[in-house]
């Protein structure tokens, strides 16, 4: 606690390795993320980007190394505990609750902020009812923030892809996270949707002071919105620098940008 308050990095990943059987998906990757920073992780497919996010959010447990959040070791927490620390995330292939309305999806994001009192909830009475309404108000502020007023009662599964991504961001924001992990938030979007999403991400960062780690393929986006770019290749970190330097980094050009240009 005190270390974090003293200004240490919010998230520290130290020499983390993740293995699936014989496959080494992450190989001693280290990464520090400061408070209110926007860090982009780039790298070719299979470089271990999503694996890194999964390790941070507790889906995979590293085989070696250490993950610390706000100065404390969090290497072996399970996802719900990670969420309780104030880490939220979105998924590469939108993982919305398809059968629920947009409103309910975002409300679910506030789960950790809600207190349970089974009997009162069963009666929808008193504090339980008040709590529902208060959180509805909080969710409405997020709906307003992300400009999705027109779809709040629509079942999430019926939305076009771009909007689903936005709703997923809304659900992550509903938890009022300190650290937001975004796995390809702009994948499959058109130019206009991408611009909107960029604006939202920057707004989130500025408005709420949320620290953001994102994986993104669109180099234009990465250069525009991130403070720092981390490049992974075959499970190793090969670069970690501000966008301007990344642009001219030879190793990165070889490993990644060259590939990207071909495709």
């Amino acid at each position: 606690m005190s270390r974090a308050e003293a200004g240490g990095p919010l998230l520290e990943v130290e020499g983390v390795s993740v293995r699936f059987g014989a496959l080494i998906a992450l190989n001693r990757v280290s990464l520090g993320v400061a408070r209110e920073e926007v860090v982009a992780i780039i790298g070719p497919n299979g470089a271990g980007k999503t694996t890194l996010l999964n390790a941070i959010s507790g889906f995979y447990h590293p085989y070696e190394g250490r993950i610390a959040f706000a100065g404390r070791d969090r290497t072996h927490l399970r996802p719900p505990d990670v969420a309780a620390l104030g880490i939220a995330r979105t998924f590469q292939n939108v993982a919305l609750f398809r059968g629920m309305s947009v409103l309910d999806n975002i409300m679910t994001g506030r789960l950790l902020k809600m207190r349970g009192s089974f009997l009162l909830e069963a009666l929808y009475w008193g504090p339980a009812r008040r709590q529902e309404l208060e959180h509805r108000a909080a969710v409405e502020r997020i709906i307003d923030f992300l400009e999705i007023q027109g779809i709040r009662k629509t079942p999430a599964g019926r939305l076009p892809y771009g909007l689903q991504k936005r709703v997923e961001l809304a659900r992550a924001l509903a938890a009022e996270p300190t650290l937001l992990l975004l796995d390809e938030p702009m994948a499959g979007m058109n130019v206009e949707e991408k611009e909107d999403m960029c604006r939202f991400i920057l707004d989130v960062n500025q408005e709420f002071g949320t620290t953001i780690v994102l994986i993104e393929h669109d180099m234009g986006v990465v250069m525009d919105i991130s403070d720092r770019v981390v490049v992974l290749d075959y499970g190793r970190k090969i670069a970690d620098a501000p966008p301007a330097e990344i642009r001219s980094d030879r190793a990165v050009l070889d490993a990644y940008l060259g590939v990207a240009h071909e495709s």
Partner: protein
Amino acid sequence: MVDVVYAVLVAPFKDMAGSPAFLVEVLIGGVFAGLMYSLVALGFVLIFKASGVFNFAQGVMVLFAALTLVGLLERGVPVVLALALTTAVMVALAFAIERFVLRPLVNQEHIILFMATIGLNFFLEGFGEMLWGANVKKLDIGIPDRSFVVRGVQINELELTAAVTAALLVTLLAMFFQKTRIGRALRAVADDHEAALSIGIPLKTIWVVVWSVAGVVAIVAGLMWGAKSGVQFSLSLIALKALPVLILGGFESVPGAIVGGLIIGIGEKVGEVYWGPLVGGAIENWFAYVLALAFLLARPQGLFGEKIIERV
């Protein structure tokens, strides 16, 4: 307290040691029963592997096959012809199921397909009984239900025949999956529908084939069980007996179905004989389940399932 511990943990083993021949008899009985379970479980696995459908109607298919066979035999049709005709009926049934149940429900959630097979279960039960009548029938396929003794161990001829047939069928199926093109396609389809298509066999065909094969397995199972305990409604309940086998062996594993069947068969017989009396008997209805469940808690992917890494 001590009595209970003794009764549960010591006495049964003392009994086993006291009469090894009886133990062997029990074990053989367990193996026979297990092979029969395997046979039914195999029907489930085949269908689940190829179409992702948990076919609850497998038990009724056994009953239906047996009813058809008995019905034909009763009308004086020779055994071989009756078997051929029954096979034809089961293949026709496979076609009908593909056309009227599976095809309209393609891409539905698994639970919906599962429900559909329960519907099918009811339909076939009513249909079979309407065609062939509901009363208990004796199925006589010419193998005497008598025992001979080998080194003090009693062996029932009928059970032995059934076990051998089951073993034979299991081997044949394994060969079918390993050696034939369509067999390989069936295995492929379980993993990846696209891949199966690239082999050049339409999904429709695969489904018909697999349901036909399951139908044939059902005939054999019906034949064996029917010969042993008569052809009646309760035949359809043997499906429920096969379910723990599936839990144990995994829904998608042919070897799992076989080994699982043996474990359940033996475990059940041994449990019934040595521990059953402690709780008043008749534990065969649930013992297998508890056995499978306990096993599953330790190893959720089943006997032969691979550990699934959840990709997120």
